[in-house]
């Protein structure tokens, strides 16, 4: 291959391949022409199709990523809010429970107090009544004792053979009982 091309070129250019083909100026117009054609074609392919497309894809990806990050941020905030709300609800429920317990306690205490007071009043009433009865009984008993004493005194006086004066005996018994 190498010798063949060498021979062909030697035939074409009178053995110039011994030197640098880069300095063979007869090929310059050809190279420059095809280079310009190539660059123009590449330029149009790039500027019309490839670069706008790739740029759009990259921009779109960037947009998607930022959107996703923003959405994630938002969701995180929401999650934090939800946590706060949950904690607040929990605290509220605790406070409510505390309050209900307190109320119930107060109610029960009030009931209890009322019942105690009522019981106390009843007890006091009954005690008073009992005392009154006792006093009555005592009064009755005193009365009875007085009567018995008077009767007995009259009887004793009569038994001794004296005519008893009922009035004097009674006064004497009364004064004795008082003393």
């Amino acid at each position: 291959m190498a010798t063949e091309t060498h021979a062909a070129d030697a035939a074409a250019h009178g053995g110039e391949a011994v030197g640098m083909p880069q300095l063979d100026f007869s090929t310059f117009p050809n190279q420059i022409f095809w280079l310009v054609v190539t660059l123009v074609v590449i330029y149009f392919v790039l500027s019309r199709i490839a670069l706008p497309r790739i740029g759009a894809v990259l921009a779109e990806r960037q947009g998607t990523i930022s959107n996703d990050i923003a959405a994630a941020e938002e969701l995180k905030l929401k999650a934090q809010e939800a946590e706060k709300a949950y904690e607040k609800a929990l605290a509220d429920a605790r406070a409510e429970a505390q309050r209900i317990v307190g109320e119930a306690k107060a109610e029960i205490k009030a009931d209890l107090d009322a019942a105690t007071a009522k019981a106390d009043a009843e007890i006091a009433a009954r005690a008073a009544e009992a005392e009154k009865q006792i006093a009555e009984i005592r009064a009755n008993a005193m009365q009875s004792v007085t009567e018995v004493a008077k009767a007995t005194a009259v009887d004793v006086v009569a038994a001794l053979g004296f005519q008893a004066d009922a009035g004097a005996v009674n006064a004497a018994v009364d004064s004795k009982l008082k003393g």
Partner: protein
Amino acid sequence: MASEEAPSGLQIHPMDQFIVKPLFGGDAIHWYTPTNVTLWMALAVLCVVLLLVIGTRGRAIVPSRVQSIAELAYGFVYKMVEDVAGKDGLKYFPYIMTLFIFIVFANFLGLIPMSFTTTSHIAVTATMALAVFFAVTILGIVKHGVGFLSLFWISSAPLVLRPILAIIEVISYFVRPVSHSIRLAGNMMAGHAVIKVFAGFAGVLGVGAVFPLAAITAVYALETLVSFIQAYVFAILTCVYLRDALHPHH
């Protein structure tokens, strides 16, 4: 150049791979003749279309492999233009992308054995370098008028030194297209020629051919790196020149 010390039939023609020849026979090379230049440039265009058009056909949010390579290339050049030439340089991104992607594919296609490396020719690289040179010069003059000359007047230097620096700046400005083009063509040509020389040795050494073959492998790896780096260097220098045209004031 062609080292033809031919002991026992050692035939090395390292430069033959660079010969421009008509595709369909004949001797004459007119400007319109389809040559191996045409073929390998067309293949470069084909690769560009395959990668950047067919590869991105899906427009997927989650890219396929080919699409991610296309996106990487896009992002790589886009960021380079933005970083080096600035935000207002992004208007010229398609031009720089065109140059970069063409040089990358021309370089890599040139690495295929028996292929033809279009970017090893000074005619090709000089055309691109001169196009860049004239484009940025005209752009600078259109944008800034006489103010573009402040590129050569370094106001941060001491006043005495400024005329001398101006001369140096002017010379370096006009040498730009030369270095810009010869760097690329020279790198491509040298590596390929070296591989060819080693290949010539391998042909006559018999069992000892493992050494040149190992050398070819090593040089080939280096050339793969160089192929990309030179395309990158060409593109980034274009960006630097563009920045000078857009912001001539130091």
